[in-house]
């Protein structure tokens, strides 16, 4: 019985961990899509300016 409960608990912990990872990956994907959506509203010049601020001048 004790072993059965241990395995049950282990199984639920693993399931929670897998679910959390899946949700985090979904969140990252949604955020990336959102970033793409808003960045696509900018002109090429504005995107270049943003690139230069982020990565330094060439």
């Amino acid at each position, binding site marked *: 019985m004790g072993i059965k409960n241990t395995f049950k608990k282990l199984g639920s912990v693993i399931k*929670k961990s897998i*679910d*959390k990872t899946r*949700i*985090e990956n*979904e*969140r990252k994907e*949604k*955020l*990336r899509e*959102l*970033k*793409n959506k*808003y*960045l*696509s*509203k*900018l002109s*090429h010049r*504005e*995107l*270049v*300016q*943003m*690139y*230069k*601020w*982020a*990565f330094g001048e*060439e």
Partner: protein
Amino acid sequence: MPKRKTSQKSSSRRKTNVREPFDLTMEPFRIEVPKIEIPSFDLATAPERKRINPNKLSRLQLIGILSQKLSWKEIYDALYRLKKEKLAEKFKMEVERINQIYDRKIAEIEGKVEELDLQNKVLKPIIDEILSVLKAIYRVKFSNHNEFQNTLKNFLIWSSENLEKQLSKLSSEIKVEKEFSASRKDRLDIIITIKGWRIGIEVKYDLSNQAEAKRLLGQIDTYLPYCDAFIVVSYKQIPSWLVNQIKIKEEEKGKMIKLLAPDKII
């Protein structure tokens, strides 16, 4: 012919031919190592990494790089630097909304938050407070649509201030925005963010007008994804066919849509 006595001789011959596996007298195999020039690790003299000229990158490439490498906060700050404050705020709102949804999911998995009965426990008191403020529109008499439209802006300003006061009883985290736009064609009259929930409000004069009714249905389709609940305030009676259409949408989208008419709340 006599037989040769080959046994001794052949065994000695065999001895010279057979090499013992661990015979250390053997000359080791010579492996010729080709000369390879190993570059120096002196960073001071190391060749500089080629910098990418962003002007030569296409728009799509830039979007891909920036969305991958920058965090949402960095993009938000950059939008402000580009003087795109409205876009930045809308972006931040959507990011916060996504984070709230997924934080809630994670909290549910961890067992920290019970699955809430949205209508009864959380949204109902908020909606009741909102409706008590919006009913004030029926105290004013409008003879036509133009008069209503002219007064609408002032009503929205008044309602926003009173909604903030009324809802502060329920939570200190309140944000009331007027004329929220998610598309170029339309704007939502008011959007309230409270306790992580977002409620959209649209105020109409007369929904028996087919054009107005269709426009409202379009607005519900556009703005419901941004909201947890939606309130339609109509100065005049709402036709029953429209009520049915809206209730179908409520079931399809799985989000609460409340209708406030002069004599009832649906």
